[in-house]
């Protein structure tokens, strides 16, 4: 979509900057998705479908870190064919998501007012 807005820009440059912008938003996207309990690989696919091309080797350690910070809770589900670790956002995680989204809005307004 952005390609049609800036047709003259070098594709690599654009991709690099978009990736950098999205990298900082992966936490928001993960917290938002995990309002429903989800396991690692399913989260990876959901995020990829939503345009957050995050790698497994980034996401799996990230989930552990968020859990350690008390933003996620986890539970092993052994009912299905293979045991999987399901993560869900905690109350703290919800509060963080709200704070991050509010900041996101502020940043958007600020940038708009600058141009």
């Amino acid at each position: 979509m952005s390609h049609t807005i800036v047709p003259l820009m070098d594709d690599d440059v654009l991709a690099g900057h978009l990736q950098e912008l999205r990298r900082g938003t992966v936490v928001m996207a993960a917290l938002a998705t995990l309002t429903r309990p989800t396991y690692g690989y399913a989260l990876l696919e959901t995020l990829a479908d939503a345009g957050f091309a995050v790698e497994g080797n980034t996401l799996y350690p990230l989930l552990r870190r968020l859990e350690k910070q008390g933003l996620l809770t986890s539970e092993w589900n052994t009912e299905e064919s293979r045991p999987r670790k399901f993560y869900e956002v905690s109350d703290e995680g919800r509060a963080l998501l709200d704070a991050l989204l509010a900041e996101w809005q502020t940043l958007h307004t600020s940038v708009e007012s600058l141009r």
Partner: protein
Amino acid sequence: MPATTTSLAERYVHAVTRRLPEEQRADVADELRASIADRVESLLEERPDLDPATAEREAVAELGEPSTLAGAYTGRPRQLLGPEVYPAWERTVRAILLVAVPVSTLAFAVVQVAVGKTFGEVVGSVVWIMLSLVVHIVFWTTLVFVLAERSSADSGVRESLDVDWSPDDLPDAPQRRGSLTDLVAALTFQALLAGLLVWQQVRPPLSLDGADVPVLDPDLWRSWFPVILALLVVEAGFEVVKYRVGGWTRPLAVANVALGALFALPFVYLGWTEQLLNPDAVLAIQQDWAGFSPGTTHAVVALVAVAIWLWDSVDGFVRVHRTQGAPTR
């Protein structure tokens, strides 16, 4: 659980988790196993032509280098020295190298010469010592910084290593300097001259009746040669001063005339009074070249010394004129 025994996935999981703290291992291993199996499943769904082994290989490859993933889990730095510590490391290594290597090497060389080692032995051991010094200094300094960064909780260590930068650390703004090419050329020439003087004595190129004979009269080591060596050091100091004050000035050009005269004087005097050449060396040369005239050679030395002095003196004033005329002043 799927019976995969020591499949690629299992080997990968092991490679990652063995780098993790004991208490995390089992849990991370189970989750990684499930994630890889999930990925294999979806790869096979997306591309039915894939065989399971290839899909597993691809799923594992996507996760990348095991130690990198393990590092992401533990949060341990995946580099020897981080960007935060690097500038202090560079400052320290450079400072130590610049001081320690020349001083120690010079001291070592002086001792070697004093002990009576031959020219070749001295050069060889000096080069070896220099290399060893550089390797040791870089290695030990780096080790200290790596350890300091890894135990970065201790702020005293960080402070002593000058890691936390402050504006007070700024170096002075560069002053207008003279030509570095001139400086290096002059110092090289002076070092060569001093080296030649010592070399013709230590490793005489001539021999008479089987005995080595120095080209220049060895008796002069008790009178004029130390003076000439001292003057070379003074000349080198003059070049450094000239560089630091930003190149040629009128007082420097005047000093250059005086200094040049002092330097030319021993050669003119020794040439004029025919004392410079070693009489044995003259005999040795005349064995191969009967027409060799020590008188003419001495006269040429005296004349060349005067010519160089005149040319160098004029050159000094020409440079002053050029520098002051330059619009960059």
